[in-house]
C-alpha cells in the first residue's frame, strides 16, 4: 500500500505551549487513520498543519508526494479538510454551496456537475438543497459539509470530529459512508475524534495523542491485545497513565 501521507517529526510551538511534539505517522492509500485524544491533546494542531493552515516549527509532512512546507498549493489540490463545528454560508442554498466549493477545485464544467451530483447523492438532503443553509439543522449542515469534503474524490480527506452534532442513526450512516469510500474509491482518511467507539468501528489504524505527543500507533485489535484491554477506552486510559508515570 503506497503512502498517501507521511508525517515526519511534525512539531508546533506556540509562544508558551508545545502543541505538537515530533509527531510521525503515515497513511496508506484507501486507509482510514484516526488520531485519538482528549481536548487540547494536539489533534487539531496536527491536522491544521497537514492541511497547510498552520506552519510547523519543525518537521514536515508529505501528501501525495508534495511537502506541506515546500509545495502547500499542490498539497491543497490533493486534500479536503472538514473542521470541527464548521459552518457554511447561511445565505447560500445547499446546492449553491456545493457548486461554489466544487468550483474552487475544478474548472471543467462537466466534471464540476458530476462532482455536485455525487455530493447530492452522498448528503441525501434531496429537495432541501434548494433551501438556504440558514434554515438547516446542525445535522443537515454536517451532512452537507461531509458531502462537500468527499465530492472531489481527494486523495486524502481530513475530517475533524466527522460525526459531531449528528444523531446516532446519522452518525452510523456517515461511518458506513467513510468505510465505503475508502474501500471502493481508495480514498484515504485522516480522522480526529475523542469518540472511542466510533474510532474502533471505522478506522484501520489509530494513533493515540496526548499532551502534544503521539504515544502509540496500531490497529484497534492490536492495541487492545497489546494492553490487555477490552476496548479502546481502556487502551487510551492505560497509554495515558503509562505516559504520565514515565
Amino acid at each position, binding site marked *: 500500500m503506497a503512502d498517501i501521507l507521511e508525517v515526519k517529526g511534525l512539531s508546533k510551538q*506556540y509562544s*508558551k505551549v508545545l502543541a505538537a511534539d515530533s509527531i510521525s505517522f503515515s497513511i496508506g492509500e484507501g486507509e482510514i487513520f484516526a488520531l485519538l485524544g482528549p481536548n487540547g491533546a494536539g489533534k487539531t494542531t496536527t491536522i*491544521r498543519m497537514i*492541511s*497547510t*493552515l*498552520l*506552519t510547523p516549527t519543525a518537521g514536515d509532512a508529505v501528501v501525495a508526494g508534495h511537502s506541506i512546507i515546500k509545495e502547500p*498549493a499542490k498539497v*491543497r*489540490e490533493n*486534500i*479536503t*479538510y*472538514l*473542521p*470541527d*463545528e*464548521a*459552518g*457554511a*454560508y447561511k445565505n447560500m442554498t445547499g446546492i449553491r454551496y456545493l457548486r461554489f*466549493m466544487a468550483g*474552487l*477545485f475544478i474548472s471543467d464544467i462537466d466534471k464540476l456537475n458530476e462532482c455536485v451530483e455525487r455530493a447530492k447523492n452522498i448528503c441525501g438532503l434531496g429537495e432541501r438543497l434548494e433551501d438556504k443553509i440558514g434554515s438547516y439543522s446542525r445535522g443537515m449542515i454536517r451532512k452537507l*459539509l461531509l458531502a*462537500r469534503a468527499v465530492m472531489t474524490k481527494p486523495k486524502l480527506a*481530513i475530517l475533524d470530529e466527522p460525526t459531531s452534532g449528528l444523531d446516532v442513526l446519522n452518525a452510523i450512516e456517515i461511518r458506513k459512508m467513510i468505510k465505503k469510500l475508502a474501500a471502493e474509491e481508495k480514498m484515504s482518511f485522516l480522522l480526529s475524534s475523542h469518540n472511542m467507539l466510533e474510532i474502533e468501528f471505522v478506522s484501520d489504524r489509530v494513533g493515540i495523542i496526548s499532551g502534544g505527543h503521539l504515544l502509540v500507533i496500531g490497529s484497534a485489535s492490536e492495541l487492545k491485545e497489546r494492553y490487555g484491554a477490552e476496548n479502546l477506552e481502556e487502551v487510551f486510559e492505560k497509554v495515558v497513565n503509562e505516559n504520565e508515570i514515565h
Partner: protein
Amino acid sequence: MKFINLLKKELSELITVQMLLGLLVSLGIFMALGSVMDTTIDEAVEKTTNYTIRLIDRDDTEFTQDMIKSIENDGNKVRLFTDTGDDYAAILNSNDIKDVVIIPKGFTEKINKAQKPEIITAAKMTSAATISNINAGSSSAVSLIQKYISEKVASMGGLTEEQYKIVNQPLTVRENTVVADNYAEVSSESIMSRIAIQNMMLPIIVFVLIILTSQMLMSAVANEKTDKTLETLLSAPISRGSVIGAKMLAAAIIALINAAVYMIGFKVCMGDATSKISSSAGELISGQVSVDEGMHQLGMALGGMDYLLVGLQLFFTIMICLSVSLILGALINDTKNTQSMIMPIMMLAIIPYMISMIADINSLPTVIRYIVYAIPFTHTFSAIPNLMFGRTTLFTAGLIYQIIVFIICMFFALRLFMSDKLFTISLNFGQKSKYKAKKRRKSAEK
C-alpha cells in the same frame, strides 16, 4: 431581591471593557473637540471685538477725511493704506491684510450731487470654515460709513426725494472676494453659502462610506472566522491572496455603488438649492458676477482633474478602511464584538469630520493640528477645500500620507493573513485568558 439579582446580571452583561473603553475614547474626543472649539471661539471673539478698520481713501476729500476722523473718534482702530491699483488680491497680499474698504474717486462728488455713492470692499477667504472668514473690520466700516453719510445728508435739511433715498440706503457696496492671487466681484457670503451646502453633505457621504465599507469587510472576515468557513476556504486550492483580494474588491464595489447612489442623491437634492443661490447672488448688484462665475474667477471651481484627484483620495481612504478592517476582522472571534471593533475606525472618522465642520484645521494650534493631520481620514475631509483654496502642496502631502498609511496597513494585513496568527490571534476584551483560567483551575484543585 429577585429583581435586584436580575438587574445585577443584566448590568454585568452590559458593562463590558469595550463599553468602558468606548466611553473613555468618546470623552477623549469631546475633550479634543472642546480644545478645538476654544481655539476657534477665541479666534472669533478676537476678530469681532478687537478688529481694525482698514481703509484706502482714493477720494481723499475734506468729507472723506472728516468721515474717517469721525469713525476714529467713535473709538475704532483705523489703519489707512496707500493705493496700489485695482488688483484687490495684490492689495491684500502686499499689505498682508485680510480685508480692506476702498473709498473710490468721486465718492464725495456723488453725495454732493444727491447720488448714491459706492464703496468697494475686498475680503480674503482662506478656508471653508465659517469662523475663519469673519471680517468684522470691513462690515463695521461699511455700517459706520453708512451711518455717517445718513447723518450728514439728513442734517442738510430740505431734502429732495433722491436725498431721502440716500438717507435710507446711503451706499452701494461692491464686494470683492480674494482667494490666493485671484479676486472676483462676488460677496464672500454667497460663496460661503455655496461651500456650506457642499460641506454639509459631502463629509456625511464620506463618513457613511468609511463606516459602511469597514463594517462590511470586518463582518465578512469575522463571520468566516467564527463559522470556520475560513479554514475550509483556505484549505482549498486557492491562494490566500485571492481570498483577501476577492473580499476587498467585493467590499470596494459595494462601496462604489453606495458612493454613486449617494452622489446622485446629493446632486438631485442640492441641484435646485445651489442654482437658486447662484441666481439670487447674481441679482444683488448689477455688475457683480454670479457665484459660479465668481468661483471660477477665484480659481475655486473644481475641474475634471480636481475631481479625479478627489476620487483618487477617496479611493485610498476606502483602501485604508479595507486594510484596517481586514486586520480588525481577523482579531474578532465572536461576531458580537464587530460593533466594538469598528469603533477605532469610527473615531478616526468622527474627529476630522467634526473638526472640519467647525474650524479650519490649518489655523489650529500646532500640536493639535499635527495630531489631526496624523489621522489619515483628515485629508479626505479637507481634500475639496484644499483644492478650492489652491493649497495643492497640502493636498499632495495628504494624498502621499494616505498612500503610505495604506501601504503600511496592507503590509500588516497581508502578514497577518499569510501567517498562523490568522487562526490563533484574537482580542477578548474583558475575558480572562485561557492561560490565566488554567492557572486558576490548577490552584483551585490544589
